[in-house]
């Protein structure tokens, strides 16, 4: 019962967080110079003062700020994020169309980073003086220091130009025709470079974190006990140490989701990956604010959901947390 209550509390808290994000969006739009009507008139190429006033009434811009905020929140709650004026489509439809590509990219990069990072870190932790450990140090330092868009462009130069193994742009070959299996393979070929690029930063992070955490755990008393029982290295590492060493990695992974989503914006622009990052970039170029803010809201929603999942995963891994 108590557990359920604590889960509920987290849930309510997440909802409040989302409400705050909506309010922030609203305030930003209000603080920015010009409003929706001004932008529309700009597109139409001017209008009479009467028409402007009429449009303001129609869009509720003549009302009290709090009433506007209330209307904005109720609209958002029903999934109505407004209309993108460059695409002439509801923001929600547009984002839902582009979201699957982003989720595919972010999820692949995330799993790749957590898996490779943890494996590297754990192997390195077992032999602190080895060459491999130094290799992990160099890898993690460079992965962190290289701007992600530059890593992507370098990958393009290397693996699509000088060694044309992978396609440079998009998610599918234009005019692709073939069986479903070939279709999956086509997407996979396009996915490799962007996913590895996005993962590179986080492989660096997780390998460092997993190594530090593993070394810490390996020095603790209960591991000494396990060893003195005569257990093999393998059992000590994978049955006793691993679970505890993973805790900080899980926490960090949850916190990093928001950075991954943001990183996807850059990576998608570099590789022309048709996700919401690409959509956000184009909406900035065309000053399509409803679309941009809709994307900000929905990606924050993704982060909040991911944080909830991590939180629950953490509770499963560590029963002490109530």
């Amino acid at each position: 019962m108590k557990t359920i209550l604590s889960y509920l509390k987290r849930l309510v808290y997440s909802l409040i967080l989302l409400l705050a994000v909506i309010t922030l969006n609203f305030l930003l739009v209000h603080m920015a110079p010009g409003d929706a009507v001004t932008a529309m008139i700009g597109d139409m190429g001017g209008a009479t003062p009467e028409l402007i006033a009429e449009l303001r009434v129609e869009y509720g811009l003549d009302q009290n700020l709090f009433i506007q905020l209330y209307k904005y929140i109720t609209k958002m709650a029903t999934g109505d994020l407004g209309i993108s004026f460059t695409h002439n489509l509801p923001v929600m439809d547009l984002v839902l169309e582009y979201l699957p590509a982003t989720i595919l990219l972010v999820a692949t990069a995330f799993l790749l980073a957590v898996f490779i990072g943890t494996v590297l870190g754990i192997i390195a932790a077992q032999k602190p003086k080895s060459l491999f450990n130094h290799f992990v140090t160099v890898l993690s330092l460079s992965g962190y220091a290289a701007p992600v868009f530059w890593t992507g462009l370098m990958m393009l130069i290397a693996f699509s130009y000088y060694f044309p193994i992978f396609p440079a742009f998009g998610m599918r070959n234009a005019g692709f025709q073939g069986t479903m299996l070939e279709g999956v393979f086509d997407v996979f070929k396009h996915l490799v470079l962007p996913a590895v690029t996005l993962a590179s930063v986080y492989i660096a992070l997780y390998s460092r974190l997993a190594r530090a955490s593993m070394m810490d755990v390996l020095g603790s008393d209960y591991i000494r006990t396990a060893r003195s029982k005569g257990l093999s290295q393998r059992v000590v590492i994978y049955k006793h140490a691993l679970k505890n060493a993973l805790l900080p990695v899980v926490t960090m992974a949850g916190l990093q989701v928001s950075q991954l989503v943001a990183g996807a914006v850059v990576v998608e622009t570099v590789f022309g990956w048709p996700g919401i990052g690409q959509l956000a970039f184009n909406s900035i170029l065309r000053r399509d604010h409803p679309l941009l803010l809709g994307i900000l809201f929905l990606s924050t929603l993704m982060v909040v959901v991911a944080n909830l999942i991590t939180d629950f995963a953490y509770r499963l891994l560590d029963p002490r947390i109530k």
Partner: protein
Amino acid sequence: MTNRPISDEVVQADRPFVEICRMFFGNKAAIFGLLLWLLVILTAFLGPAIYPSDPFEMVGAPMTPPGEEFLLGTDYLGRDVLTGIIHGASVTLAIGFSATFCTVIIGVIIGVLSGYYGGWVDNLLMRFTEFFQVLPALLFAMVLISLFTASIYLIVLAIAVVSWTGIARLTRAEFLKIKEREYVMAERAMGARNMSIMWKVILPNALPPLIVAVALSVGVAILFEAALSFLGLGDPNAYSWGYMIGSSREYIWDSWWTITFPGFAIFLTVLGISLIGDGLNDALNPKLREL
């Protein structure tokens, strides 16, 4: 991330300065980082004097490969890449430092108040911090810049607004730990004011981990500025390394050098500051070395 408690008798700020320097300069990686930064700083200050051309100026044939005429080649408009890199150093440093400065001011104030007062103040400020943590940083910065007009000040502010949370959390954690120590209690018993305990007694003792975090923030700020400029959201009058890469990426197949060299400059600068940060960490917080 370590489970080991940090023993109270080790007041890290009291470690003799000489000892800290000895440890820092005994670290080869840290010295390498320091040399890299010396190079960047010298380039930023002396570069424009030695190499006084305008980076926006077209000086040669477009897309001349690196060679005798232009050491690092020219871009699609015939602008010299080397001039761009030299002039970009000062832009990078200016934005990196001022954004870090703002980040630290916001983060430290929130962290200090939160950690020192605790209770509802802490609760409120930490909820506020969490709110900023769930916003995807780069996307939020992009929104801020695109809603208002891009300028160096707005970019600095946007970077600070999305990156102060780490510093705030760290400061808070240090304050929570230090405020229970005997010497703080003694100050309080002697009737010291809250303000003076916060800023004159606790903060100096919280500095060692903070200095490391600040060094790392400089790197983060530089990467941020680069990404924003790459996306075309930088100050249009600032010739930064990120801008150089962003403006030439359409020509990636014809002139690899216009992308590779500025990116390498960013890479070395950020690498330098992270090596310095790691070195400082080892020297200032020997107990936390494995972090």
